[in-house]
């Protein structure tokens, strides 16, 4: 049976973070109940239609921890009912604030084996500028409770280039992850998106300069690599073999099904998504099909985000032919400056090249 990753988008949040432009709505008991029912219906619908085995499950958001233990278990149980019991990885994203509302032992019992903590920073002043509702002590509690339940596979989000951040404070945040033996670290650079509060007040934010952003990124990469982490994707680090199995599907052209408002899927070479409206999702959960969503270019663009890069064997497996010659020809000019490494079987962007990966990818595939 074919494997698939299931992503559940949980759009509930206690307030909107000023930098966030993901789809989210306020926490509301009735809405949550209706939402969970809708999720279950969609699981049934897709389960009957696809007959796939879900080898990874990922509850992201929003704030999945706001659902509470029982709803989470309800959703997971339904997925296992319709997509098999055979999961390698079940991840739940949690907000540190919710350390005491989740029963991790129960979650563990129902198969949850990976927790992704939205820590963002290990400094109270940085957290308050991000208007996060948690402090460092909640992060510590969250780690404690997770470990107590013997869930040891922990991922943490650390944001780069946030207001007031400097090399020293960043290193302290990274050190915290290292000392706490965190398996996986996602380091997203803050991007001021249109429509967010930060966008409106960006001039007053005391944001780092572009040069400093670069410095922060490079520091992260150097520091974590030196401490035994593998910089396996542009923004992701992990200890040996602790890559996010679910996230790898995105870059590998593996199937994944996203359920929930604004959730995206890639199933049988087709991309589709739900509207970003919880009401649509509850009352009229239709999907939108994307055009031209399966191509060598798209695959290459995704694979080149990974440190392993574009491999000929895998390329051939998917498209039945070798990586186009012109990709190699175009990639060659970036070898000398250290942005690209390639041989006849692969093209990969180096850590140095990651920072300008958009331009490099563009130059290789077009």
């Amino acid at each position, binding site marked *: 049976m074919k494997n698939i990753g299931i*992503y559940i*988008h949980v759009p509930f949040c206690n307030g909107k973070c000023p930098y966030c432009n*993901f789809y989210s709505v306020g926490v509301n008991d009735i809405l949550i109940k209706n939402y969970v029912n809708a999720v279950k219906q969609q699981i049934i619908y897709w389960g009957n239609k696809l007959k796939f085995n879900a080898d990874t499950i*990922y509850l*992201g958001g929003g704030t999945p921890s706001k659902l509470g233990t029982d709803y989470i278990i309800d959703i997971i149980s339904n997925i296992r009912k319709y997509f098999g019991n055979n999961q390698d990885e079940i991840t739940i994203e949690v907000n540190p604030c919710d350390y005491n509302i989740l029963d991790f032992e129960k979650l563990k019992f129902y198969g949850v084996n990976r927790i992704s903590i939205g820590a963002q920073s290990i400094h109270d002043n940085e957290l308050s500028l991000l208007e996060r509702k948690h402090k460092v002590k909640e992060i510590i509690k969250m780690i404690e409770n997770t470990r107590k339940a013997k869930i040891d596979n922990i991922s943490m989000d650390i944001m*780069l280039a946030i207001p007031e951040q400097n090399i020293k404070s960043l290193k302290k945040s990274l050190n915290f992850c290292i000392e706490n033996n965190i398996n996986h670290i996602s*380091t*997203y*650079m803050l*991007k001021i998106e249109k429509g967010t509060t930060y966008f409106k007040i960006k001039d007053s934010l005391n944001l780092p300069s*572009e*040069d400093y*952003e*670069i410095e922060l*990124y490079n520091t992260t990469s150097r520091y974590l690599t030196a401490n035994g982490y593998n910089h396996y994707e*542009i*923004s992701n680090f992990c200890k040996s073999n602790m890559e996010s199995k679910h996230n790898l*599907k*995105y870059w590998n052209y593996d199937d*994944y099904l*996203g359920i929930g408002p*604004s*959730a*995206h*899927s*890639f199933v049988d070479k087709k*991309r589709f*998504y739900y509207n970003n409206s919880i009401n649509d999702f509850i009352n009229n959960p239709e999907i939108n099909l*994307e055009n031209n969503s399966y191509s060598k270019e*798209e695959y290459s*663009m*995704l694979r080149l*985000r990974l440190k392993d890069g574009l491999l000929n064997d895998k390329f051939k497996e998917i498209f039945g032919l070798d990586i186009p010659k012109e990709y190699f020809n175009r990639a060659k*000019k*970036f070898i000398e*400056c250290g*942005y690209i490494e390639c041989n006849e079987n692969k093209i990969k962007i180096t850590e140095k090249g*990651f*920072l*300008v*990966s*958009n*331009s*490099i*990818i*563009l*130059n290789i595939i*077009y």
Partner: protein
Amino acid sequence: MLIPKNRIRNFSIIAHIDHGKSTLADRILELTKSVSSREMENQLLDNMDLEKERGITIKSHAVTLIYKANDGLEYMFNLIDTPGHVDFNYEVSRSLAACEGAILVVDASQGIEAQTLANTYLALDAGLEIVPVINKIDLPSADPERVCKEIEDVIGIPAQDAPKVSAKSGLNVQDVLESIVSLVPPPKGNDNLPLKALIFDSLYDSYKGVVVYVRIVEGTIKVGDKIKFMSNCLDFTVVECGYMRATNLEKTEKLSSGEVGYIAASIKNVSSARVGDTITLADNPASEPLPGYRTVNPMVFCGFYPLDGSKYSELREALEKLQLNDASLTFEPETSTALGFGFRCGFLGLLHMEIIQERLEREYNLDLITTAPSVIYRITKTNGEVIMIDNPTNYPETSLIESAEEPITDAHIYAPSSYVGNIMELCQDRRGIFINMNYLDSERVDIHYKLPLNEIVYDFFDVLKSRTKGYASFDYELTGYSKSELVKLDIMLNGNVVDTLSFIIHKDKAYQRGRKMAEKLKEKIPRQLFEVPIQACIGGKIIARETVKAMRKDVLAKCYGGDITRKKKLLEKQKEGKKRMRQLGNVEIPQEAFMSVLKLDNE
């Protein structure tokens, strides 16, 4: 239209840009009931979008109108519109040759401007009767008496009885029509003499073929006549003839001497019907053609390249089509290492160049890269050979040049006397040689300079306007060549010369301009994955250097929950952006970079 010859009036309108020529033409169309109010669209005669937008006339247009005068009789008016800008003097002289009179429209507050004067002299030279009209008398600043006096002083024709009108409101426009009846002489000419018809314009119609606009000077022409073009002896049979009415072509059996109309004769190639040529009858030819026009030679040259190299043949077709209606446009293929295949085009002046460029972009949907405009230089080589260079790429090496000459113009600038200082400073800066200065009246001066043409072709007019708050007007005429210390300035990107950015310039100005170009290019070339050095150099010697630093950050960090649409969109956008770039070695140069160096701010 059976109107006796003595009631035909053929005339043009001469006016400075903005002095209201098109508005007056509109009023005349209304008063002669040539268009219904439903059809009345402002500035009907200017039917190119571009003309309406810029408020100028580029091509001459002709229209036949019937006017019932105060004497109770019907007159046939043939109004031939003329372009106002100096670049189009050629078209003006074509139009004037088909007329017996010209209405001179002068703004009641601004008075006579240089171009008006130049065109008025053309009309006087052609023996036309000038009918002065003072327009815009409704403006608070209008001073019709002063302007009348100015006309009498400067042009030397009586103007006290000139109609004083507001074309905008229609006030007194009737007087203009009556003046035409009483002042413009009827055409001479004899229907019984062998046919002589002057071609003053032509256009290509996909159904009729080439439609030739003619003024019948002697004889008659009718459908079925076998005609002959006197310059090339080509024969055609007239399929259709008629009058150009305001909104349509009106067929007629024949055109007689004194009349203005069109002929269609299944002519496939516009080059057969050369403007200025004389048409006669094949069976009963005239012994001598009419005097043609002075041939105009393009003065300004530049390269046009399609942004998308595959559109080369479309560009050629578009240029061919434009040339059908614009005999003064020349073009020939050229190749550039930076831009690939394109055309070297010749123009009457800078405005002409801009208009052709805009028409190509709008009417033919072509994205163009234009190279820096150049004039024609005369180079005497050390081996005695004399060559004419209109493309900097062909400029010989310094060691091979014995001497170089550049075209010089005789330039008149008319402006209020308070701007004399600014104007002289500008002319001095443009290597001008002061000739003299005449006061036209107590406030207005005519400043006369000798100016090198290559100092005018870039942005002289723009700068002149800005330094005189728009009050100055400018006219120039090529007078000849003069020795000059010229050098070729090259721009190198990443060590490679970009041939289309090279230009020829006076030695004293090369350094400053080279530095400015390098600065501007630095602004316009986006950061790339590599550092891009920009160098300006003369004969291998680098005179300016700038560097576009390497891009340091271009990454999309987040790709959340498998939603890759944002990443794809970004990539698509970058891909589109890349299409608008020209690849030169490893360097990508955007279209704006090529364009921006054409107009370097002068301040």
